């Protein structure tokens, strides 16, 4: 593993081969916002809030820093007017789902995002996939996964796995930025865990 020299926001940064731009930036104390990133999990590149400008030999492109590998001579800019605009829109799109998320509210303040700019959506899941990936990669249980695709994509517990694995784990709960996961769990719990039969109250 050799050292790689690159530049982030005008600062010379040394990184190891195989690192991502986000890791290199964090190691150098440069902050890039993230939502779907988690240091214990494989980079996912889905929320795109960590977008930065990568300039390789004059060829500029916008890339997700959490998945973009470091390269020698790469010049990275973590902020620009366009990057600010993109992050603002991403936060606004997610606020349409989860206006009460503390994490999103903090980002909204930072980027001047308006939670009412886009039409409200029924589901408050923002599809960061933290629960799904944590369960797959760390716990290796696959008790929660994505179903369907496109705008119908949702997370869902697999009922028979959830009934066996989840009740004494729930390690994914604190990862969820919107508490949609807990709601989904309540549903699967109601479906899978036998409930005591309803008793009709005496006298009625």
């Amino acid at each position, binding site marked *: 593993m050799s050292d790689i020299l690159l530049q982030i926001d005008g600062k010379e940064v040394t990184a190891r081969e195989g690192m991502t731009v986000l890791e290199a930036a964090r190691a150098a104390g440069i902050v890039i916002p993230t939502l779907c990133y988690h240091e214990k999990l494989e980079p996912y590149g889905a929320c*795109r809030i960590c977008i930065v400008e990568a300039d390789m030999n004059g060829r500029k492109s916008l890339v997700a820093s959490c998945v973009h590998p470091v390269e020698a001579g790469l010049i990275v800019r973590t902020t620009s007017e366009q990057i600010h605009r993109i992050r603002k829109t991403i936060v606004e799109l997610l606020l349409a789902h989860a206006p009460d998320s503390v994490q999103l509210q903090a980002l909204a303040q930072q980027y001047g995002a308006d939670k009412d700019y886009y039409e409200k959506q029924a589901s408050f899941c923002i599809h960061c996939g933290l629960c799904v990936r944590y369960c797959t990669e760390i716990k290796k249980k696959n008790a929660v996964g994505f179903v369907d*695709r496109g705008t119908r994509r949702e997370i869902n517990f697999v009922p028979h796995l959830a009934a066996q694995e989840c009740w004494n784990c729930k390690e994914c709960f604190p990862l969820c930025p919107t508490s949609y996961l807990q709601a989904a769990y309540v549903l699967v719990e109601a479906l899978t865990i036998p409930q005591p039969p309803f008793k009709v109250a005496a006298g009625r």
Partner: protein
Amino acid sequence: MPRLQSPEALESIRKELASKRDSQRPCISVCAGTGCIAAGAGEVIAAFKAEIEKQGLQADVDTKGTGCPGFCERGPVVVIYPEEICYLQVKPQDVVDIVSQTIKEKKVIDRLLYVDPTTKAKAVRESDIPFYRNQRRTIIGNNIKIDPKSIEDYLVIGGYTALAKVLFAMTPEQVVEEVKTSDLRGRGGAGFPTGKKWEGARNAPGDTKYVIVNADEGDPGAFMDRALLEGNPHSVLEGLIIGAYAIGAHEGYIYVRQEYPLAVENVTLAIKQAEEYGLLGKDILGSNFDFSVTVHRGAGAFVCGEETSLLMSLEGKVGEPRTRPPYPVTKGLWGKPTTINNVETWANVPLIINGGAEAFSSVGTEGSKGTKIFSLVGKVNNTGLVEVPMGITLRDIIFEVGGGIPGGKKFKAVQTGGPSGGCIPEAHLDTPVDFDELTRVGAIMGSGGMIVMDEDTCPVDVARYFVEFLTDESCGKCVPCREGIRQMHTILTAITTGKGKEGDIQRLEHLAEVTSTASLCALGKSAPNPVLSTLRYFRDEYEAHIKEKRCPALSCKELIAYHIDPEKCQACMICLRKCSAGAIVGGKNQIHVVDQDKCTKCGTCFEVCPPRFGAVQKISGEPVPAPLPEAERTTVRKANTNE
């Protein structure tokens, strides 16, 4: 069939096959592509076989189901050789006449010929029909000449000569160089230089490499790749084997969608035949080069046409894109260097090898060489597959090859590149077909979908349609694509249903910027193109929808009303009887009135009102005139006045 052990053996079998064929022997070729099969070609072929047997002509006449020649509008298409007489829309009941008159008496049957809609001139030969005459059919032209289920047919027309040439007369580097010199660009849509891609995979470190045919054609209304894979599977296979030799791959995959059963069947059979002939498998033609191909059926996700999603799907994972870099040429299938090309790109390769890079690049423009196949559909007279030289203008494709717009309507726009492409208006019709020129006007070349729209088409609704398609077909992984498409769809639906608000256009522009720049893969990056291009050329129509609640094309149902002009209505009761909603009030000698509360806006009254009356009107953006008071509705029809 013993496996061929040398290029000489291939040539001798080719000569032997050719010598058994008499070019003067009558042959009835019926298109057996999916389109013509759906129009009844199967029955037509069966009827020919039965009739020929009945008339005792089996020994003198061949009957063959062939690949798709492209004129799907007029299928089933029958071509009779050696005269090349072309009959269109042939039905089983026409077969007796064809056999007894054309085959036996060499008489042409007038009623089955192509008639030019303007000059009324009839065309006897295929090449006389303007639809074909204005094309340059180097790839798809062979389809009608061969039975796609017969490798012998392909060998007779010179098949696998290019393969023999590269294996015995060229080094892999020379093959890469030849393809580079030809300036062939990928026909899947993005137009990446094929030779450069091959070079990347050839130079990538590693012993195991793969080549893949991307036959996951998904654009609505596009079927170029299907027609090639169905109609001439060996040409694609030959290109693939050559590519494998060039980059050093010994395994290949054909990723084809399950919805193309005939393509799957024909290409699977082609692989089997090529293996039997020693053109695939171990030690091809005695050259020591080994290569095998597997057909992989995709489950029909649009996003799997995107190369990294295709790789995920091939590996048995969920079809979602992965991040590039690394690019597939260095880390593709199972992490190995992989070349993925579109069906049409592969089919171009044997042509380049046989004819030379220079001959290939002599056709086309500075930046785009060779020909391109389009599926020309929508509001155009001659729908079907067309192959044209790069550099031809859109106007020539639509008006010369396509025969213009039906029903005397005005041309409005053409959408190239499907959901990733853009709408090009009349003002840019002289744009040449060229990767860069089409991008410059806000569309893309795409894989070859070309949808023609007339004055009755609402561009806002077109944008809504394509975005709606993508709400289902986005994989849903990244935020800009999933949420951007969701919100664009919500806004476009609101605009087309009269609920558009001030600021909606600006919101669309914000979403388009973010979706096109921040999405993970090409699906998201190109998803806003239909919105951006219609905004660019038809902004006034967006504004009319939002501000005046008016659809200028009179197409958006929620924004139009049907009204019967009392001055013109002859109380003929045609519309009254045809209205399925019972929304037309009136009777004999009673001027008809549309009950707006009951009207479902199906448009039937508008269509059935005799043109000489023209009483039913579509109105938008203005109040429906109040109906005549009932007492004034009695009318006496002109024809009845003499009674």
